[in-house]
């Protein structure tokens, strides 16, 4: 009886974990729509600078390239975290997750600095439709990254306490999925918001 119980217990959990992963994929589809709407808004409004400053005048491309590099690296390190997890290496997993979170944090730091710089130069969210769309799109991505950092930290604590279990495994899988996704979104932000503006 107890054996049957344990068996079905594992079975139940296994189902739950794969369901949650599938659910998260669907959530990401909705997030894609969310970002697509913001991108569409940005593209429609990009010309509407209302005789205020335009992006090309104020954007500092060097900083953006550095943050892009940082975010791409963090995506790579979160991949390394997965590898460690699959090898059963708890320490490595925690280490690489922490590195990813820290890289994320520095990305956010640079972004906040960029925003402060722009505001000082006279471009805030109320300056014109262009800047409204700019700050909202870039800021929404930043908000996603920030939430990811908090979430990743929470997962690190859980792994430290509980080790690599089916549940924590699923959580790491999902956060790394999310992290790669944000990376992909950033590539679009980088090309559409920044690159096309300065080119």
């Amino acid at each position, binding site marked *: 009886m107890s054996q049957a119980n344990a068996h079905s217990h594992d079975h139940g959990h296994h189902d739950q974990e794969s*369901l949650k992963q599938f659910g998260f994929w669907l959530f990401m589809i909705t997030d894609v729509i969310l970002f697509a709407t913001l991108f569409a808004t940005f593209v429609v409004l990009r010309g509407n600078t209302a005789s205020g400053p335009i992006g090309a005048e104020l954007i500092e491309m060097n900083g953006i390239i550095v943050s892009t590099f940082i975010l791409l690296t963090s995506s790579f390190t979160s991949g390394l975290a997965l590898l460690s997890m699959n090898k059963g290496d708890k320490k490595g997993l925690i280490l690489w997750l922490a590195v990813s979170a820290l890289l994320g944090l520095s990305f956010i730091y640079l972004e906040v600095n960029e925003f402060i710089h722009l505001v000082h130069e006279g471009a805030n969210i109320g300056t014109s439709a262009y800047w409204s769309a700019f700050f909202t799109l870039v800021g929404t991505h930043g908000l996603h990254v920030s939430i990811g950092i908090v979430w990743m930290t929470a997962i690190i604590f859980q792994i430290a306490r509980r080790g690599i279990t089916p549940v924590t495994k699923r959580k790491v899988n999902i956060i790394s999925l999310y992290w790669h996704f944000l990376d992909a979104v950033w590539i679009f932000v980088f090309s559409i918001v920044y690159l096309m503006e300065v080119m």
Partner: protein
Amino acid sequence: MFETIKEFASEFFVTGDPMILGAQVSIALAMVAIVFVLTYFKKWRWLWSEWLTSVDHKKIGIMYIICSILMLFRGGVDALLMRVQLAAPELEFLHADHYNQIFTTHGVIMILFMAMPLMFGLFNIIVPLQIGARDVAFPFLNSFSFWMFFAGAMLFNLSFVIGGSPDAGWLAYPPLSELTGSPGVGQDFYIWGIQISGVGSLASGINFVVTILKMRAPGMKLMKMPMFSWSVLASSVTIMFAFPILTVTLFLLFLDRYVGAHFFTVDAGGNPMMYLNLIWMWGHPEVYIVVLPAFGIFSEVVATFSKKKIFGYKSMVFALMSISFFSFFTWAHHFFTMGSGANVNAFFAVTTMIIAIPTGVKVFNWLFTMYRGKLSFPTPMMWAVAFIPCFVVGGMTGVMLSVAPADFQFHNSYFLIAHFHQVLIGGVVFGYFAGLYYWWPKMFGFKLHEGLGKWAFWFWNIGFYVCFMPQYALGLMGMTRRFNEYNFDMGWQPLNVVSTIGAFLMGIAFIFQVWQIAHSIRFMKKENTGDNWGQGRTLEWSIPSPAPFYNFARTPKVVAQDDWWEKQQRRERGEADPAEVIAADNAPLEPIHMPKNSGIPIIMSGFWFIAGFGFVWDWTWMVVLGLVGVAVSMLARSFNYNDDYYVQADEIERIEAAAARGAN
């Protein structure tokens, strides 16, 4: 000091209008009464542990339905007030600003806080039972969805007594809905009420897609799935693709109002036309989100009461999915008159007409399900049959509106009003009523009184035609929607009076329904037989009514499209079940894995409510408090690993035996 408080209070509370004062007093009295009753009968703990924290899909569904009936009452009263105001020319029953608030809240409440929760209520109760699952895929998220809906609905309704209701129309077109056009907090209540409940809807959409795709009983191939579940899948997929657009749109409008952004303003490069595009890119699919499940319900009801398989199953599935797909390519027909040019208008006119094709096919398939059937007419079937001519007319006028150059004459007129009420009442409301009557015994273990139900049916139907047929005519007379008054010389009065009478007939119908429910709770016989109509076709009828909390004692094995019906047929013919079915039916009871109740969803939604209220009033401390509360709740959930338990086999056996006794 006193003066400041007085000044604040007069801005904070809606004052001055005796009608509102009366409503405030009655709301306050009702709340005191509820608190008193709960305390007196010591029901607080029961309420909390059995309902508010429940993750049981059936209980969540019932809570959705209760809320939606209350909202139907509120939205209905709004409608009656409007009809009274329009019954005579230059009537001074409601002031213009009051009228504007009422038509705004009527629209928002009926679509988002009446139709949506009624829909989710039926999704919740029926889908897991119909596909042979123990619960939805994510019970915790499901509870969260409900409480987010509840928080949003309460925030929106609160504007009635605090701060003032929104009054820029149900879709709040800018620049009217911008700070310049609507400086009051009503518009902020609108944004946050819808935003918060919208998050819940989005989560529900994901939840049901996963539930349907991943949790069907063994043997239930997609193409053996009941039509209602198919329609829920179509609707949920549509939710997934449409609701993020709403979230963004409202968020941008919020930024315009809150931090002075310029998305939809007329100055600094903003573009109000973009709002129209965005809101209808959600708004049009939204209409199909609510009507597709109604189609599913009709398919179930018509098949059941014709004692016949649904005709053209594959066509029906294909039609559902193609409607869901095309619904995303028609949004611009809501503003043919915005000057987008002939190319754009021609494109959207044609895409809109295309939707009529699968919809028409569905009507034929329902008709031919009845053809060569054995039709009986209990109330659910009456609603289904009444739906067909009503929806055909509504669909036809929809086609008329899709003819872009003709729409220049229909747009913004009562013709349009009559059309969308005809598809929303004739399609959605009739459909959900059919579903409610059909599955009521499954939810509660007793049927609703048929006689009172028939009275309600006739009042609804006659009232509907009396109310809305004249409005088509009024539209052709040039009567514009949202007018709070009109001149004597237009000759609009007679038809407006007729229309008002119709509205009151529907009001009477609602009273009959409330009476019917009250009467049935008191007097209708409990019948725990699973198959209350005696001719059920799908899995939900194979288990006791109401379903035990774990739904299925043994996971069923499905072999046919209408599995339960086929099983009964085999029994009647004296045939044996297939071996796999026998094996599944006689398998030893195993412990069932169940989710634990949780207070986090209601608490987290409470914090969302607090944050939303803070945003409305621009109180930063409150916003921070709310959002921190949300974050802490989420972390609490993440760190909680103790969220499930097992029902042991002997307990299941006891419950099943009790149900079997009740049935005999």
